[in-house]
């Protein structure tokens, strides 16, 4: 992937220099291998802090709202779709945000890479598709394709759908015959196996809410898990409460989720919370012909009513 960082920095510097935006929101180099940190820079002098590579797995649309003045933002395909959703849902105004679109061919799965080593990773370097990863005891050369994040493997929107300028040439989009093989696999399980799958999925959840807070869709001033009068969900480690949080959050994101993978990226336990949201994404596509964040003029299906809405569930 052309990390196009030179172009990103040049564009950002130009915007700040001309005073066209107050701040540029992008990624900064991390202090540990395979990490990057969202950053907002306000002056041309800070431009060298911006980076862009295959470990920029968070969704910057999460940081785009409630900013003072006009901002510029680095947006991958999925990020740009979330910006569209923000605009449709009145969280930002189109003229408040200058989108530097970055065509992307995927982010790496840090947990997958870590599992290939028996001790902590100390170095990570990438050159095109080749990754050189070292721990204290060994070094391995990996192909990026082999360690892509699951959502990136199945991505059909690598190019930004909304942008003011592109930092690189558009890339070829994947065409998938079946975009939801993971959902099909779970759907094919029998009832008991399905239950076990989800019980297993959440057994290590510590209710840190990193998934919810990294998600650009979760912007409610008071989340349902924090309501006290009445209280909807317990805050402890009771299995039912933990599961309720995940299921209910997935439903609140139904028809709006762009599968950006920030939730899984943020989870300290490496839980694949996408197993909850993917099924609802599939339903949105099959029942409403809908993919989130592609159209500035339409509201998500659960927001709007049409007499043509499928209702064969009414028996």
């Amino acid at each position, binding site marked *: 992937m052309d990390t196009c960082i030179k172009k990103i920095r040049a564009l950002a510097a130009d915007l700040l220099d001309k005073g066209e935006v107050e701040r540029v929101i992008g990624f900064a180099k991390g202090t540990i*291998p395979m990490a990057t940190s969202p950053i907002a820079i306000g002056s041309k002098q800070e431009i060298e802090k911006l980076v862009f590579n295959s470990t920029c797995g968070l969704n910057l649309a999460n940081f785009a709202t409630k900013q003072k003045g006009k901002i510029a933002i680095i947006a991958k395909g999925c990020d740009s779709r979330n910006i569209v959703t923000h605009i449709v849902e009145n969280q930002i105004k189109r003229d408040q945000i200058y989108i530097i679109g970055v065509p992307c061919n995927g982010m790496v799965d840090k947990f997958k890479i870590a599992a290939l080593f028996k001790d902590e990773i100390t170095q990570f370097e990438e050159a095109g598709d080749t990754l050189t990863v070292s721990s204290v005891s060994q070094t391995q050369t990996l192909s990026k394709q082999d360690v892509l994040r699951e959502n990136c493997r199945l991505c059909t929107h690598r190019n930004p759908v909304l942008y003011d300028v592109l930092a690189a040439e558009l890339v070829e989009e994947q065409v998938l015959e079946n975009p939801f093989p993971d959902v099909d696999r779970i759907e094919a399980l029998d009832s008991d196996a399905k239950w076990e799958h989800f019980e297993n999925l959440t057994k290590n959840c510590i209710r840190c809410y990193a998934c919810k807070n990294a998600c650009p869709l979760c912007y409610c001033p008071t989340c349902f898990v*924090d309501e006290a009068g009445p209280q909807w969900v317990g805050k402890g480690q009771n299995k039912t409460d933990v599961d309720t949080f995940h299921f209910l959050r997935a439903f609140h994101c139904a028809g709006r989720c762009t599968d950006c993978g920030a939730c899984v990226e943020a989870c300290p336990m490496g839980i694949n919370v996408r197993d909850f949201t993917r099924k609802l994404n599939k339903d949105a596509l099959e029942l409403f012909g809908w993919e989130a964040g592609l159209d500035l003029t339409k509201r998500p299906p659960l927001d709007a009513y049409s007499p043509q809405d499928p209702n064969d569930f009414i028996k």
Partner: protein
Amino acid sequence: MKFITIDKKDWAKGIDKSRRTYQLFGPVKDENGCKIKELDTGLVPDMDYHESVMSAKSVLFPQSETLLTASLNESVEDHHIMKRAENAYTPRAVLGIRPYDAKAILLVKMNFDTKDYRDPYWCDAYEATTLVGLGITRPGPFDFSTSVGCGPFCEDGLDILMADLDDHYLAKVLTPKGEAYAVACGFDAAADDKESQALFDILRKEAEKNIASSVETDKLKEKVLLDLHEAPFWDEVAFSCINCGTCTYVCPTCWCFDIQDETKQKESSRFRNWDTCMSPLFTRHATGHNPRGVKVQRVRQRFMHKLKYFLDKYDQGIMCVGCGRCVKSCPVNIDIREVCQTMNTYEKKD
């Protein structure tokens, strides 16, 4: 002080024997990383582990713990009168705990066992727990324990410290609790005191040489609290924070909790859950007034508490043992080492 040699071939059998009188906890690997868990019968702790994602604090301080119960059934004689919940504090042992986690327990003890109040739940669990530590011969890249008063072979808070010597463990028994545990396992192959101590010293020096990370905390005490609080760098530190609870939950020295009541039909229980100062609701008054309603205030609170308030209040160093878990797990890579450096070198501009 006594030294014992434990052949690794005897380890599993020995700890199995201790199950007669001890509940066992230890590092267990699963698909989401390594954790300190209760060891069901037959499950052996993974003594080759490097770091566990979560610390051992949950053994003494479970994430959800029932404190009191009461019956709401008015036909029962003592309805609405709360009783202590029936929790078991049978003897337990945590096997393979890292020295920084044991030191952290001593720091947390300062909170739960004070001259005015004693938290019976935490303290009873503490008294029932034996900590069998495993020295870290190969410290990980995020381990900065030596610069914060701890280290890969630090003995503070441990009942036994073990060193991994390939085909056997060399165990240093530090307390009567440790002694009792060794007896319960049947580990009694005594090793020479002088030689063993010398070996431990060498191992400790080697391990400390391998520590790759450090922080400087020497100037924190002299900084004026309010100057650090009003410093301009907090906005930059806080920008990327998503206010989840990851850093506080993986941290072995974080102890904040929430108390809640729940009812099920006619039974009520009061329990506590881990809580995080990063949560927007943490300081929200019932009237709606929230002294730390803005994100930067909360981010600042966490670092000020760990690196300044605790230091000033108790003069026992900072509230951090250098395990590096928060550095590794923070979704947005906010690094406490960097913040510490920024605070330590901060000079107020007039």
